[in-house]
């Protein structure tokens, strides 16, 4: 909201510099976010919080400035009496919806001469960004920015039957507002109508037909109070807001309606040469019970942690309009009418006391220790999550963070079923229309981005939530995805190598070893991965995740022109199976012996079968079976491959004899020949 420093000083005769005042207002909770110098004046941009509807005008800010500068508030004085005339009629007003319009006042001003406003008035309203229209409209705007009371002036002679009815709109009723838009109304919108049609959307905007113009002779000046919720609802429904609706939504001081109306009438009579009847129309609730709140001084001290005395309380609250009585035990505080919307409870008063006392003056203390335990299951998940992140970073993977909201198309591209996805009812755009049920789209997006910016060798992971519907419920759970493409790091000694699926398998094996999970792989299928390039990651027969070569057709749809290898991990199985507790396994000090077996086998024999067959042959003395080399060139026959396997022998309880090892080697060679028709070389 804009506040003119010069205008403000009409009500607080202070010499405080604009910048200092801005600083003090900020520290009092009225944050001045900008100061603009304009023709010798300073225009403050003030962020008024929704609770301070009293500060949406110059008098309101002046009241705060008066408390800050300790200068008396000087409200404008006026005298309406000289403009009273007998022949002016009193308008007829019917209030049908007192609940939505607690109070409605109207005054008829006759013989007005509509003309441009005097310079001083134009200067004032222009300083706060209001466009001058004519003297009548400008005065209503001036009063709004002076007192916070929205006013509306109708051309009285254009009101059918010279009548005002405050009622609900009929469904489908229409009105063209002063900004020229035709608005279709519905049954719960409060309108100001004449005998026939709506002439204003109550508290929001007036109608074009009854607008005050050059030919206007008699005006009906409305000063009313409308129900904030009703105004807000209508304003939102119609997509229509104004300086008036902004203030009504936040609540106005209904006890100052008459003052505002009289002051405006006075200005109109003076500037536009009008006259009015002594009596005005005033329907609805006239008296509002003053609010008295009990305040316990000890509670103030306790909640703020500051030694605030009773006299601090009194001297703090008085300048901002509160009346404080009683000193011992409980104080009684009378809330001024302009703070009724905001100050309802003791806590609200304590805030006012703290605000005026100054947050800076409240001491800074540390609480006596409050130690809280985390839920054991959460502690465990947190440890595992951190460990995964650190281990993957250690293995050369960069962590990424991608948006949880993606487009439905992103999911479809991956051939992943989108039947269980959660849609957003009011998305910003289709690009963020659904919640992701897989991390892969984000992964591929990041890969594409980096390839396009000249970094084709990428290793990424993300550990974030995915979202899906399950049995009618909305679920969210963390997921872990890894992806890589391009080459491994190289240097002058070691040439970079093309990454492949085995790189990722190795990473997964190492990662899960660190987490105490012994994984193995089995061929599998996944809609996003090549049919002959997909493996399930298992632990104790449970599916821990999936790893594979991303389908070329999917990469094509994502504009990626290189092979991508990816894995997605089910974190529930991960959390359940991780073993974080370390317990030393005895180091076996008996010597190890290494023996090689070289063979050629048909291409369709999986290495894993050979591996298992070897281990099963001499389980108790084989420590490890390692694939040293695969070769396909001559002398290996076509359709076959050569495998060089290195077996490490070691016993847990003795030194192995040469003969034992040779016997095992013989058995292995025999088994390989029998089971796989392997040619031992």
């Amino acid at each position: 909201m804009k506040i003119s420093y010069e205008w403000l000083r009409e009500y607080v005769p202070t010499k405080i510099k604009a910048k200092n005042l801005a600083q003090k207002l900020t520290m009092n909770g009225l944050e001045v976010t900008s100061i603009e110098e304009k023709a010798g004046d300073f225009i403050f941009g003030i962020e008024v919080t929704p609770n301070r509807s009293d500060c949406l005008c110059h008098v309101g800010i002046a009241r705060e400035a008066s408390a800050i500068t300790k200068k008396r508030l000087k409200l404008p004085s006026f005298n309406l009496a000289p403009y009273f005339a007998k022949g002016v009629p009193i308008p007829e007003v019917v209030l049908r919806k007192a609940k939505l319009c607690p109070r409605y006042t109207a005054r008829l001003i006759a013989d007005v001469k509509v003309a441009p406003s005097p310079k001083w008035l134009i200067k004032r309203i222009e300083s706060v960004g209001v466009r001058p229209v004519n003297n009548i409209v400008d005065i209503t705007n001036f009063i709004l920015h002076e007192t916070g009371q929205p006013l509306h002036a109708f051309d009285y002679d254009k009101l059918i039957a010279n009548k005002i009815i405050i009622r609900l709109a009929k469904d489908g009723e229409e009105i063209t507002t002063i900004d020229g838009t035709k608005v279709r109304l519905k049954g719960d919108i409060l309108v100001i109508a004449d005998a026939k049609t709506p002439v204003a959307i109550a508290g929001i905007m007036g109608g074009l037909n009854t607008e005050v113009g050059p030919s206007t002779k008699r005006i009906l000046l409305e000063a009313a109070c409308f129900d904030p919720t009703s105004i807000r609802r209508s304003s939102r429904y119609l997509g229509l807001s104004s300086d008036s609706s902004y203030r009504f939504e936040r609540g106005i001081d209904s006890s100052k309606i008459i003052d505002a109306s009289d002051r405006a009438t006075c200005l109109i009579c003076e500037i536009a040469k009008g006259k009015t009847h002594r009596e005005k129309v005033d329907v609805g609730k006239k008296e509002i019970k003053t609010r008295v709140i009990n305040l316990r001084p000890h509670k103030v001290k306790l909640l703020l942690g500051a030694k605030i005395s009773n006299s601090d309380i009194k001297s703090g609250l008085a300048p901002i309009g509160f009346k404080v009585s009683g000193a011992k035990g409980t104080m009684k505080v009378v809330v001024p009418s302009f703070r009724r919307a905001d100050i309802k409870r003791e806590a609200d008063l304590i805030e006012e006391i703290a605000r005026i006392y100054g947050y800076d003056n409240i001491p800074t203390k540390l609480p006596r220790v409050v130690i809280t335990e985390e839920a054991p299951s959460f502690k465990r998940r947190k440890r595992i999550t951190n460990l995964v992140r650190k281990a993957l970073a250690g293995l050369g993977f960069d962590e990424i963070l991608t948006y949880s909201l993606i487009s439905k198309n992103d999911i479809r591209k991956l051939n992943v079923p989108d039947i269980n996805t959660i849609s957003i009812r009011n998305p910003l755009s289709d690009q963020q229309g659904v919640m992701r049920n897989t991390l892969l789209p984000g992964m591929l997006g990041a890969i594409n981005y980096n390839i396009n910016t000249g970094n084709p060798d990428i290793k990424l992971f993300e550990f974030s939530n995915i979202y899906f519907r399950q049995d009618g419920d909305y679920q969210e759970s963390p997921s872990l995805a890894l992806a890589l493409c391009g080459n491994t790091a190289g240097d002058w000694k070691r040439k970079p190598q093309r990454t492949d699926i085995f790189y990722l398998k190795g990473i997964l094996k190492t990662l899960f070893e660190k987490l105490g999970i012994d994984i193995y792989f089995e061929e599998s299928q996944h809609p996003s991965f090549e049919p002959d390039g997909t493996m399930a990651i298992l632990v104790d027969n449970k599916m821990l995740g999936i790893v594979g070569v991303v389908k070329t057709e999917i990469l094509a749809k994502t504009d990626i022109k290189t092979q991508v290898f990816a894995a997605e991990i089910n974190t529930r199985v991960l959390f359940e199976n991780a073993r974080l507790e370390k317990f030393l396994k005895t180091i076996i000090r008996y010597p190890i012996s290494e023996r090689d077996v070289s063979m050629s086998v048909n291409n369709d024999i999986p290495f894993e079968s050979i591996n298992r067959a070897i281990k099963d042959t001499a389980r108790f003395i084989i420590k490890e079976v390692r694939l040293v080399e695969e070769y396909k060139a001559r002398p290996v026959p076509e359709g076959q491959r050569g495998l060089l396997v290195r077996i490490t022998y070691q016993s847990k309880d003795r030194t192995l004899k040469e003969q034992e090892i040779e016997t095992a080697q013989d058995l292995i060679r025999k088994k390989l020949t029998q089971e796989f028709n392997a040619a031992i070389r």
Partner: protein
Amino acid sequence: MKEELDNTKEAALSEIKNARTKDELENVRIKYLGRKGEMAGIISRIPSMPQEEKPTMGRLANEIKQLLIEEIAKKKNEIIQLKVPPAERMDLTMPGYSFQIGHIHPITRALNEICEIFTRMGFAVVEGPEIETEYNNFEALNIPLEHPSRDIFDTFYIRDNLLLRSHTSPVQIRYMKKHSPPFAIVVPGKVFRPDAVDASHSFMFHQVEGLMIAEGISFAHLKGVLLDFGRQLFGEEIRLRFRPHFFPFTEPSAEVDVSCIICKGKGCRVCSQKGWLEILGAGMVDPAVFKAVNLTDEKFTGFAFGMGVERIAMLKYGINDIRLFFENDVRFLEQF
């Protein structure tokens, strides 16, 4: 015997000195220190010596033995070094091999750092769902359905009464419903608001919420805890400034500024010449919130605070565009 030992020592030292190859040296070693070597021969005769000479001679023999071991080791090193002909010296100025290490995302780093500071103070980390009820996100936090205070909380809806949380505060409600004070928690997590993406806005971002409820917790404690937090995060020299503000779920409420970490409060481009940077919102828990969770014992009071993690990470790491966090450019990620 002493003389014999001395002579052996001199002879051995001279032979070590003259040895030119590893083999020659090994022969010297075997000759003097081997199992059947000269030193072993002398030492084997010590037991038959007069009682009073035994300790002295034993010690001397051991000293000489030790000396010879050391000299042989030294000589061995010399020989090895000599063996490398000058022409084959390595060019040590060639670069070392490359290794790659991955990086933790700056938001994760900032989240962890923030949570760890509070954990050290005794706070527990608690999480809550991102898909949240309208009640927990709004009404229970004293944000009425049709009220202007809701304007700043535009929200993504999934269906009636179910939405993507627009702040981490609903976890306060969930926690207070299940636990009795005293407690102190921090809540990290993702939040969503339908803001169009630009350099300072994102429809998804991260927050850390804090809540401490106990007997006698005051605004002074809020100031104390946040000052300690600010110092741990930004450095001991920073100052904090508490400004009155409005949040529906706290009363009194404050916006908290930190003295600009770039210019130390003098005024610069980052702080728009103000010397202060807004970093979080805070306040004393509003009685309406206590009522919503049925915590009616007035002796318990508490404070709550909330901060945007992207904002903090941007200030701390000098990042000027929030979109960088979600672009995942490796040239960005690799700097953390």
